[in-house]
C-alpha cells in the first residue's frame, strides 16, 4: 500500500461564533511516499493542529486528509506520532516506555527486543534504558519519546518538534541519526521544526507556513544529495535555501 498523504481544502476552526479561532487552512497539499517534509512556520500557525488532523486525533472543520488512498476518519494506528509534549509515563523506565507503545498495540516484545536496543543506542540512551523519566534531563526525555514514537516501524511518521528541547550539540547529532534512520526506512515523514537550517538539512521538501491561520506560503524542493553532512551544509545551494526561507520570515516580520 502506498503511503502518500493528501490534504484537500483542509481547515480547522476552534470554537464557534464570535469566539471562533481559525487555527489552520484551508490547505491543499500532496506528500509523496518516502518524502521527508518539514513544516516551518511561526508559533501558533497551526502546525500541531495539522499533525493532529493528519493522525485522525482531531476532526477537521472542512476538507479531508487521505493517507494511502483512504480518507482519515478516526485515529490512524499504523503511523507513528511524536507529540509536542512528551508522552512518557512516570511509572515505567525508558525501555518500559518504549515497550508501552508495543504493548498498547498488542505486539510481541520479544520480536522487537533488538529493535528497542538499536533505537535506544542510536539516540545514546542505552545506558539509561532502566532509568525512570524523572532521572532524565528534558532532552533525554525527548529522545526517549522519539524512540517510543517510532518503535513499531510506522511507514508514516509525524514528528512535532522532536528536537525542540535538545541542546545545539545533541541536536546536531540526533539530526544525523534521524537522517540515517530515514534513509534506511524511507518512511514518509512530516516534521515540525522552528529551525530553518534543520529543515533544509533533513527534508526533501520544506513547506513554509504563514502566520495563523496557517496556509502554505511556499513549497521549497531541497534537491541536495543525502546524507547531508558538513560539506553539503557548507555548499552555496544549502545556504541559498536557508536565505530564501529567511527572506519569507522577514516578510512576516517574525525575524
Amino acid at each position, binding site marked *: 500500500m502506498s503511503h502518500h498523504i493528501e490534504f484537500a481544502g483542509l481547515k480547522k476552526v476552534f470554537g464557534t461564533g464570535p469566539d471562533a479561532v481559525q487555527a489552520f487552512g484551508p490547505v491543499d497539499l500532496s506528500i509523496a511516499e518516502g518524502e521527508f517534509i518539514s513544516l516551518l512556520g511561526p508559533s501558533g500557525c497551526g502546525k500541531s493542529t495539522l499533525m493532529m488532523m493528519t*493522525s485522525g486525533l482531531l476532526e477537521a472543520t472542512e476538507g479531508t486528509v487521505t493517507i494511502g488512498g483512504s480518507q482519515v476518519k478516526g485515529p490512524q*494506528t499504523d503511523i507513528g506520532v511524536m*507529540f509536542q509534549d*512528551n508522552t512518557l*509515563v512516570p*511509572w515505567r523506565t525508558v525501555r518500559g516506555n518504549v515497550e*508501552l507503545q508495543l504493548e498498547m498495540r498488542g505486539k510481541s516484545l520479544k520480536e522487537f527486543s533488538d529493535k528497542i536496543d538499536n533505537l535506544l543506542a542510536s539516540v545514546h540512551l542505552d545506558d539509561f534504558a532502566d532509568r525512570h523519566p524523572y532521572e532524565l534531563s528534558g532532552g533525554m526525555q525527548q529522545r526517549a519519546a522519539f524512540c517510543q514514537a517510532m518503535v513499531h516501524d510506522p511507514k508514516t511518521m509525524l514528528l512535532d518538534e522532536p528536537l525542540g528541547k535538545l541542546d545545539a550539540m545533541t541536536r546536531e547529532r540526533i539530526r544525523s541519526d534521524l537522517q540515517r534512520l530515514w534513509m534506511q526506512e524511507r518512511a514518509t515523514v512530516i516534521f515540525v521544526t522552528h529551525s530553518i537550517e534543520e529543515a533544509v538539512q533533513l527534508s526533501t521538501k520544506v513547506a513554509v507556513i504563514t502566520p495563523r491561520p496557517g496556509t502554505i506560503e511556499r513549497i521549497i524542493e531541497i534537491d541536495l544529495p543525502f546524507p547531508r553532512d558538513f560539506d553539503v551544509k557548507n555548499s552555496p545551494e544549502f545556504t541559498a535555501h536557508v536565505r530564501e526561507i529567511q527572506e519569507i520570515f522577514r516578510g512576516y516580520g517574525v525575524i
Partner: protein
Amino acid sequence: MESFDKKPMFAAMKLRLQNSWMFVAFFIGFFLVWEYSVIFFDIPLYILTPPSLIVEKGAADLDRLLYYTYVTGTEVVLGYGVAVILALPLGLAIAFSSLLKRTIYPFIVCIEMVPKIAFAPLFISWLGFGLLPKVIIVFLVCFFPIVLNAILAFSSLSEELTLFCRSTGAGVWRTFFKVRLPAALPQCFVGFKYAAINATVGAAIAEFIGSDKGLGFYIQIVTGNMRPDLAFAGIFFLTLLGLSLFGIVTLAERLLIPWHISVRRT
C-alpha cells in the same frame, strides 16, 4: 512493577535521624516538662497525671485496653475496607459516565458538605449499641474523601497521554490497565490517606455517643471516673490504631507507586 533500589533506605533513615535529633529532643523535653510540672505545680492527679503514672496504670489495665483496641480496630478496619471497596468503583464509574457525573456526582458533593459525624446519634438509635452502627459511621467518614479523589484521579489523565492512547488504537481495557489506572493511583492515595485519618476519629466519636465497649467507650468511662491517667492510656492506644492504619496505607503507597514524587527518596 519495576524494582526500586532499597539499599539507601538505611542510610536515609540514619540521615533522617541526624536531621531530626532536635525534634526528638523536643519530644522528650515535652514529656519531661509535663512530668515535672505536674509535680512542681502540685496538680491534683484527677485533673492531670504525669506520663510515668500513665504508663504504670495503663500497663496495669492492659488486658482491657488491648481488648478495646481490638474492638475499635475491627470497626475501623471494616468501615474503611468497605469504603474503599465501594468508593473506588463508584468513583471510576462517575469519572467515565457523563450520566452519573450529572446525577450522582452533584449529590455526593452536596452530602460531602454535611458533617457525617452528625448522623452518628441517628444510626445508633436505629441500629443499637453494636458493631454495625460504628462500622457505618466509619464508612461514612471514609467513603467521601475516597470517592471524590477517585473521581478526580480517573478524570484527569493528561491531554498528551489521552492522545497517545488513542493513537495506538488500544481498547478500553488495555488503556485502562496500562495507562489510566497507574496514572490515577497517586490521587487515589490522597483519598486513602485522608480517609485513614478520619477512620479512627469516626470510630471514637461513634463510641462516645453510644457503646458498651471500645476505646471511645473506655476513654469516656474512665474520664467520668476521674481517671485521666487511664484516659491518656486509651488515647495512646487510639493513636496507635490510627497510626497503624495510616502506616499500612503509606506502605501500600510505597509499594504501588514508588515512582511518584510524593514517595520518591532523593
